[in-house]
């Protein structure tokens, strides 16, 4: 136990004294600070320049060309109301002149309306988010409906009332609201993915470095392999956890300082309104998920004689993890986190840290299912830990080419 403590302290201090580790952590906290203080900074800058901006700001010009149409003033009025962001102006010029004005930038866009049901929309560069045709369709459809109703004998007021009718509705989610919890689940799964993969691979590299630098020759005669394996894995887990704590802690701190500026932003507000019990589940699945992968990475690292071998050796484990990540991400994006595939994945030890966590966050999972998943995961962590320590004990003594699985198993039986 004393050896475990010594190894844990040494390995953890190696992370904390590592300039890259400290640099990345500080950079992440600083980046979060910049993002969180951004509205504050913008408001401060905006206040100074607001007067100047007001006088200088001009709305985009929208041209309307509608020869031979009835009630042009009604159309202009309707377009002006619908496109409040634009300065709507009726033009008598022909289509070519209108196009030229749009191309030259004198007008931002133009509608050349041929009939009550058809028009051509001209814009210089069509933005991905340009919704003007949709709005124009609605305006013209309403006008067409109104004209039809008036022609059918309805009064203008009655037709206006029919078209202006408002439908009210309420939505009440009896379980989880995926609209609200999508973003924080996404952030947490991504954090889980990054930390497990990054620090897990660090464990493998760490072990392989000790082996290739031959420090292992001295280590194996000074400490028990189980203490070495567990010391390294727990130290990496703590280092990852410290980094997560700094990132999430600084996010929460900076959010609370700037809360007034962010409350209007649904996405950001939803992320920080995360239920505390979910944080507990995050912690459980992070620790267990980290352990199961870090043990495997450690065992693989012990079988490599050179650092260059690590990348190819860890590939199967990395692919398994990436596959789990893709399944979870796809299920999240199509909103079906309780699909059969996700249900199965939430009991498979290597995939459950992400799959079950996603289901807990975005759906309603009975407690017994969570308990079974965590139970299976704990059992697997212990089993993988024991097997990895045995592989480690054998692997660290094998030099030369990376040994085959069969020869490792044989050596494990003998050890």
């Amino acid at each position, binding site marked *: 136990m*004393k*050896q475990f403590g*010594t*190894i844990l302290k*040494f390995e953890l*201090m*190696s992370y904390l004294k590592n300039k890259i580790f400290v640099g990345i952590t500080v950079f992440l906290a600083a980046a979060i600070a910049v993002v969180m203080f951004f509205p504050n900074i913008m408001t401060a800058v905006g206040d100074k320049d607001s007067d100047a901006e007001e006088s200088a700001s001009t709305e985009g010009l929208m041209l309307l060309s509608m020869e031979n149409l009835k009630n042009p003033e009604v159309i202009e009025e309707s377009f002006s109301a619908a496109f409040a962001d634009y300065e709507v102006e009726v033009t008598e010029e022909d289509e070519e002149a209108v196009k030229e004005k749009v191309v030259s930038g004198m007008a931002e866009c133009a509608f050349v309306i041929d009939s009550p049901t058809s028009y051509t929309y001209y814009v210089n560069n069509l933005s991905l988010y340009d919704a003007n045709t949709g709005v124009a369709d609605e305006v013209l459809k309403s006008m067409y409906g109104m004209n039809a109703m008036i022609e059918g004998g309805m009064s203008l007021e009655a037709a206006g009332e029919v078209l202006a009718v408002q439908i009210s509705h309420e939505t009440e989610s009896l379980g989880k609201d995926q609209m609200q919890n999508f973003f924080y689940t996404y952030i947490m799964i991504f954090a889980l993915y990054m930390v497990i993969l990054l620090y897990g691979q660090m464990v493998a590299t760490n072990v392989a470095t*000790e082996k290739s*630098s*031959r*420090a*292992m*020759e*001295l*280590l*194996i*005669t*000074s*400490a028990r392999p189980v203490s070495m394996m567990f010391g390294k894995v727990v130290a990496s887990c703590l280092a990852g956890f410290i980094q997560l704590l700094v990132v999430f802690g600084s996010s929460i701190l900076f959010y609370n300082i700037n809360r007034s500026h962010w409350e209007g932003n649904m996405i950001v507000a939803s992320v920080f309104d995360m239920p505390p019990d979910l944080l507990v589940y995050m912690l459980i699945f992070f620790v267990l998920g980290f352990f199961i992968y870090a043990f495997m990475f450690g065992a693989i690292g012990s079988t490599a004689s050179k650092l260059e071998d690590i990348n190819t050796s860890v590939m199967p484990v990395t692919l398994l993890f990436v596959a789990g990540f893709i399944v979870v991400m796809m299920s999240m994006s199509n909103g079906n986190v309780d699909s059969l595939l996700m249900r199965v994945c939430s009991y498979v030890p290597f995939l459950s840290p992400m799959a079950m966590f996603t289901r807990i966050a975005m759906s309603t999972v009975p407690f017994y299912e969570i308990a079974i998943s965590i139970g299976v995961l704990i059992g697997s962590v212990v089993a993988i830990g024991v097997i990895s320590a045995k592989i480690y*004990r054998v692997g660290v*003594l094998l030099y030369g080419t990376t040994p085959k699985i069969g*020869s490792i198993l*044989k*050596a494990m039986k*003998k*050890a």
Partner: protein
Amino acid sequence: MRLELQNIRKSFGEKEVLKGISFSAESGRAFGLLGRNGAGKTTTIRILMNVFGADGGKILIDGKPIDYQKLRMGYLPEERGLYPKKKIIDQLLYFAELNGMKRQEAVRAIDYWLEKLEMTEYRNKRLDTLSKGNQQKIQLVTALAHNPDIVILDEPFSGLDPVNAMLLKDVVKEEISRGKIVLFSSHQMNYIEEFCNSIAILNGGAAAICGEIHEIKHNYVRDKLVVRSEHAAEIQKELGSCCTKKDTGELFVQLSSPAEKQQMMRRLTESYDIDEIKVFEPSLNDIFVEYAGDQN
């Protein structure tokens, strides 16, 4: 304290690496574990250090099974290596603590050894900033700082300049005089002869010969004569194939039995002008070549 290895056997898969190794070493004496590459020295050391168990045999301390909780061992592996990017004091403290020392005790011991090996100025430097010889001295501190009862030194002199080799010699002699069991593994026979009282030569996983060096030499079959004379050519002509000339000009006379040596000495001294004639005394190198030469 007496360390005994009795009939240690070990196989890796189908390959039998140790076929029943036995030897013993005592406090205040150095023991040389010799053998060609692949003879089983490192496996024996690893079994002794409990890195893995033996398939059979016993390791005893004063007649009782070895207790690794009570016994401290220090090891200088042949394959040197520590953490190149870490500060020297940090890694020395790490290994001292892993070997059961308390922090303060470890700091004192490390500072003592750094000063003794003239390495104090490098205490807070990174290991990779040191020369190979100095890195080796740092590695020696990891083997000695925790005041081990058994010190195992595998090729301790390789890579050291004559001044550092002298420094290390003094350290090894001091450890022996402090009552430690020193296990020495080296291919440099002059160092073995200088320090070790007893040796075991391993060959193909078995001890080809084991015992006190002077006894091994004494028991060596005394059936060879070394002759130095101006009449070497004539002697060689007379004795035929049993006489060979060495590069040094000396003649090497193989007798049919040790009992023949007096008669042959008389015959040669009476017939020729002989500068020197003596019974051949093998060096440790000769013994090594003879016993470790043909690996099974």
